[in-house]
């Protein structure tokens, strides 16, 4: 689906693409159409003159370049980088001077804006530096966090001043200043020695050869030192310009949480909507058969009536769950943190129960003690207990009188769902009740609590979960 979508969109989004980009086939046929073209394996067409006069100066130059590239891949980029470090070093030196100046101005109380301006400029240059390092040196540096992506002026300012990125970027610019100075010193020194050897030394038949050799050596050493400096920056750049460790950890944590949320969502979908729809389907299918029985089977309008009631309740529950899941997904799409939207809280209980009351279950909610400051995680778990408990009552016992109780005493939250004797059908309480109970028990245990689910002496059923509040997240 993604593929067909992408295919469908390409012409609209990139109207020029099909015409401006030659397809592989076109390149091939062009090459094949020119028998005097470049040797196989060379992907750039060489002017026809070169191929007609083999061994010409142009070809030798090309071969030399190929040889150089093979020996030191990317040397033109590195040379450019070394040269660029002169003007950029000067620029950053000025920036540092500006910073010092504005900090001094800060003492007199007028430099705040200046400091911010310098910091913002630093971040801007860090972006440029990342691109240079990527494109000229081939260093793999992930794009940093961008201040302008933050929402709100206060957050922008806070990120600008407090983020480690800013200060690391400043550190990098400082390193670039040093690199510029080193490059300049190397060039000056090399140039000076070269000039001295060429014009200051005593050239005669005896000294000419050694002097020439020395000059070549000076050029070689100078280039080697420059190359070393560039390589050094290439290896330092990812540390100062790359993603800070805390950012990486935060990103990892976020993606892990997202994955966990997704898995939980999938499980919830499976357990609630999938299950409710399956039960409804089977009830509907059965009801139809009891109303139009085959052969000698009796008509069972009572069953059909009851089945319709179940379908009604199940569908209502499923729709409520669908609503919740969709709100979670929408929150995620909006780029907001889904957690606060995803987790239902104790405040949502009344709505849950009123839905069940509409479905025919006489259920009351009793809340004892102050539960407002119960941690969100515990609130969600408590909500799930009530949801599972009441749903199980409907499933297994029909519509008996039911009480859901949430009570806080000190550092413990007790959640209880209790129903009277079953009103209909299959009154077997079932040792575990619904499939959700196993999951609930796991979660309750993980939270340091306990879960019990057992028949009451009066023939009803009680689900009781105790959750500690201390130390809960």
């Amino acid at each position, binding site marked *: 689906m993604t593929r067909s979508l992408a295919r469908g969109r390409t012409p609209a989004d990139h109207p020029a693409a099909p015409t401006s980009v030659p397809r592989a086939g076109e390149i091939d046929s062009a090459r094949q159409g020119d028998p005097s073209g470049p040797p196989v394996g060379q992907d750039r067409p060489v002017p026809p003159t070169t191929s007609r006069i083999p061994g010409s100066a142009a070809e030798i130059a090309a071969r030399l370049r190929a040889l150089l590239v093979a020996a030191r891949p990317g040397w033109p980029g590195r040379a450019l980088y070394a040269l660029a470090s002169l003007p950029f070093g000067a620029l950053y030196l000025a920036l540092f001077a500006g910073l010092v100046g504005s900090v001094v101005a800060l003492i007199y109380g007028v430099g705040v804006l200046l400091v911010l301006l310098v910091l913002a400029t630093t971040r801007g240059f860090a972006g440029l530096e990342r691109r240079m390092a990527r494109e000229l040196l081939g260093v793999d540096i992930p794009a940093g966090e961008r201040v302008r992506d933050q929402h709100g002026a206060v957050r922008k300012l806070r990120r600008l001043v407090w983020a480690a990125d800013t200060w690391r970027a400043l550190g990098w610019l400082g390193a670039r200043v040093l690199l510029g100075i080193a490059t300049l010193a190397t060039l000056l020194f090399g140039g000076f020695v070269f000039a001295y050897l060429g014009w200051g030394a005593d050239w005669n038949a005896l000294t000419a050869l050694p002097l020439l050799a020395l000059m070549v050596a000076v050029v070689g050493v100078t280039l080697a030192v420059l190359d070393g400096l560039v390589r050094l920056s290439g290896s330092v750049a990812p540390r100062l310009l790359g993603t800070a460790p805390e950012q990486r950890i935060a990103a990892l944590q976020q993606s892990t949480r997202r994955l966990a949320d997704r898995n939980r969502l999938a499980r919830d979908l499976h357990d609630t909507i999938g*299950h409710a729809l399956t*039960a409804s389907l*089977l009830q509907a299918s059965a009801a139809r058969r009891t109303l139009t029985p*085959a052969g000698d089977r009796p008509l069972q309008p009572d069953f059909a009536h009851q089945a319709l009631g*179940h379908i009604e309740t199940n569908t209502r529950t499923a729709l409520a769950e669908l609503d919740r899941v969709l709100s979670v997904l929408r929150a995620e799409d909006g780029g907001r943190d889904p957690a606060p939207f995803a987790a239902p809280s104790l405040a949502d209980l009344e709505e849950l129960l009123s839905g069940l009351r509409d479905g025919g279950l006489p259920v009351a909610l009793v809340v004892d003690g102050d539960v407002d400051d119960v941690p969100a995680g515990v609130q969600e778990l408590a909500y799930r207990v009530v949801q599972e408990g009441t749903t199980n009552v409907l*499933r297994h016992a029909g519509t008996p009188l039911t009480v859901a109780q949430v009570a806080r005493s000190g550092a413990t939250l007790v959640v209880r769902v209790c129903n009277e004797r079953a009103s209909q059908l299959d009154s*077997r309480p*079932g040792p575990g009740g619904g499939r959700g109970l196993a999951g609930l028990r796991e979660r309750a245990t993980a939270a340091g609590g306990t879960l019990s689910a057992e028949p009451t002496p009066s023939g009803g059923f009680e689900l009781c979960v105790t959750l500690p509040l201390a130390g809960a997240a």
Partner: protein
Amino acid sequence: MSLRLLLVDDDVLVRSGLRVILESEPDLTVVGDAGTGREALDVAAQTDPDVVLMDVRMPDMDGIAATRELVARDPQRPRVLVLTTFEDDDYLFRSLQAGASGFALKRSDPDELVDAIRVVARGTSLVLPDLTRRLIAAHAPSRARGPAALPTLTGREADVLRLVAGGLSNAEIATELFLSRETVKTHVSSVLLKLGARDRTQAVIAAYESGFMNA
């Protein structure tokens, strides 16, 4: 002769719905139902069903464990048809491995469900052959040791096993190999015997796990 069925699902609505649907077929009788795996073992011992319709996820012993236990008690009776809400590959394969003869979706058309029950009871072909074969092929940890890992099969038996694993029924195999159905039946029985497999599904798993299908 009517087929005796046991319904196992933790949701009473699923059970009551299935009961009505299945009992409207003249040749099917629901002899019992159970809400957990453990209860299913008890009820199965009391009612001696031909086919158990088994839910996978249940409290107090899930369908996979219950299937394993039923097969351990008696490899021939009852056969287990796993009923599932979704095609959750992992659960399904594990239940086949545990000894289930096949699986069906709870949402499938009632006629298909009834058909699957009859197929499982007869044992002459796989339920949902394509899906089952793909599931097994994808999950079976093939040790790729080739046919040597299987007990010596005659040439004909190997042909038959390959076609069984391809999801063909006895009748289709007969057409394919120009044999009579009786002969095919004999070959299949002999293959099952040699592999120690209780039914075709188990034979297919053995074929894939031994690497026979890669050879």
